[in-house]
């Protein structure tokens, strides 16, 4: 019966009579086109890069020396070790407040954005709004808020909250949409109100997802808070980093601050990877 099995399969053959083993699909065409366009733009970019007459070899050498000083001879000169730890805490505090406020707002809007909990129209409107919020860089939100609130922690927290809300609404509403339909239907059939459904079915079953996503965002917010300290005067370790490099030109201090940030960021990353593996991928 082997012969009949072979005869049912249709082979595409080339002009020379060989069997074609690669077929052209839309997906392969799109992959090739995307890659070629990216490659073309990259080469074009490298050729037309605005170098401002920087001597590349000299600059690379200089950079290597700076890196060496930064990482192997790092020291503090303008403030003490404990002061720098305090600044790390300030940055962590900014990130925490942002994540907390953002998380609360995103929880409510996320419920409205989940298609199984609200109407299709409300969901689309919120999701469109979120896409807009996410498209504006965080630093621009912070600077715009700084005009009304003055430079400082208030502008930074509110500005970063915007982006956090945008990110978390997306993550939360997707977790809500994954919840078993039967669970919601059962509660609806027993006459539960919308709030009862939310508190008895949705939140308990999505709690671990929410926790993991929120912590993941906390990690991102820490990095953002460092950046906002440097670019938008939000204080914390980012501001010290900006002062050490842009004001005192002190590479050694930059190195020390970088080590501190690196250390904190890696601790946060290890913690959030554990949470993610336990709750997001495991189940």
């Amino acid at each position, binding site marked *: 019966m082997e012969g009949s099995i072979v005869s049912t399969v249709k082979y595409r053959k080339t002009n020379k009579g060989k069997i074609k083993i690669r077929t052209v699909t*839309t*997906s392969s065409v799109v*992959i090739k086109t995307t890659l070629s366009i*990216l490659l073309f*733009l*990259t080469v074009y*970019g*490298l050729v*037309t*890069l*605005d170098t*401002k007459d*920087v001597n590349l070899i000299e*600059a*690379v050498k200089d*950079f290597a020396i*700076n890196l060496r000083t930064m990482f192997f001879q790092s020291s503090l000169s303008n403030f003490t070790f404990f002061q720098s730890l*305090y600044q790390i805490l*300030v940055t*962590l*505090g*900014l990130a*925490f*407040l942002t994540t*907390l406020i953002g998380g609360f707002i995103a929880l409510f809007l996320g419920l409205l954005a989940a298609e199984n909990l609200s109407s299709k129209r409300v969901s689309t409107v919120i999701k469109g709004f979120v*896409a*807009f919020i996410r*498209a*504006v*860089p*965080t*630093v*621009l939100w912070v600077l*715009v*808020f700084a*005009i*009304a*609130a003055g430079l*400082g*922690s*208030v502008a930074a927290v*509110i500005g970063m909250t915007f982006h956090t809300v945008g990110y978390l609404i997306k993550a939360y509403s997707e977790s809500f949409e994954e919840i078993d339909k039967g669970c919601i239907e059962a509660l609806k059939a027993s006459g539960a109100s919308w709030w009862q459904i939310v508190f008895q079915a949705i939140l308990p079953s999505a709690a671990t997802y929410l926790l993991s996503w929120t912590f993941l965002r906390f990690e991102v917010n820490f*990095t953002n808070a*460092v*950046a906002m300290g*440097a*670019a938008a005067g939000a204080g*914390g370790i*980012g501001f010290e*980093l*900006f002062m050490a*490099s*842009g004001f005192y030109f002190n*590479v050694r201090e930059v190195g020390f*601050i970088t080590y501190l*940030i*690196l250390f904190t*960021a*890696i601790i946060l*990353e290890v913690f959030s990877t554990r949470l993610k593996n336990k709750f997001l991928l495991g189940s």
Partner: protein
Amino acid sequence: MQINPFVKKRRQFIGLTIILTIFTFASIIITEYDVVKGFTSAPRAINWMIANLYPKEEALKNLPRILDKLGETVIISIGSTTVASIFALMFAILGSKTTKVNNVLSLFSRLTASIFRNIPIVAWAMVLLFSFGQSSFTGYLALFFVTFGFLTRAFMETIDEASFSCVEALRATGANYIHIIFQAVLPSSIPQIISWMLFMIETNIRSSTLIGILTGTGIGFSFNLYYKSMNYNAASLVVISIVCTVLLIELLSNYIRRVIL
């Protein structure tokens, strides 16, 4: 003794609330956050945005210059992502559990990626500024370093997820390392790799605004210039052009993702 699950749940909830409250108060004190001002300034800022933050006719004459800078920023974001992804792919192949050569190289590439990823882009930008000055190199390299770190981790996870069974199958047929990489690993993970690259391009356009503000290059510099000279109409034009670009790229990436994944 059996604990009532409802009591246990309530205890957990109360414990979590107390911890969060303590952290919140600590954060408010340590960052000198003014809670009242926080609530009142948000509506004020939105009112101000509606009143001032839109382009007027006279701001439109800045448009060619803004678009020029924006184009430069987009090209730099794409360029740094593509180059970084080539390096990231090599490191990811060495570091991934499925395709590693030996444990030492694997640990080395994981560690390198982690360091590059976790040093903040601000630190890279400021250190590069010392050597490369206010040229596009500064932004290009800063984006390159962070993108490289991030993509290495993303690619590693992709390779582990997508190609484990194909690699096993090819290994059983006696294929060598090069065959396995080119016939199994790359074909099965290329859609995900492109998806991550597109995500990174989008992120990099946003990050390059930040780098521009810090180092005085590209679109971030234009914004900062208008912002500091209080020419908010022109600044809003910059914001709008960034938003349009990011949304356009997002739409394009969504289309590509739908077709290839």
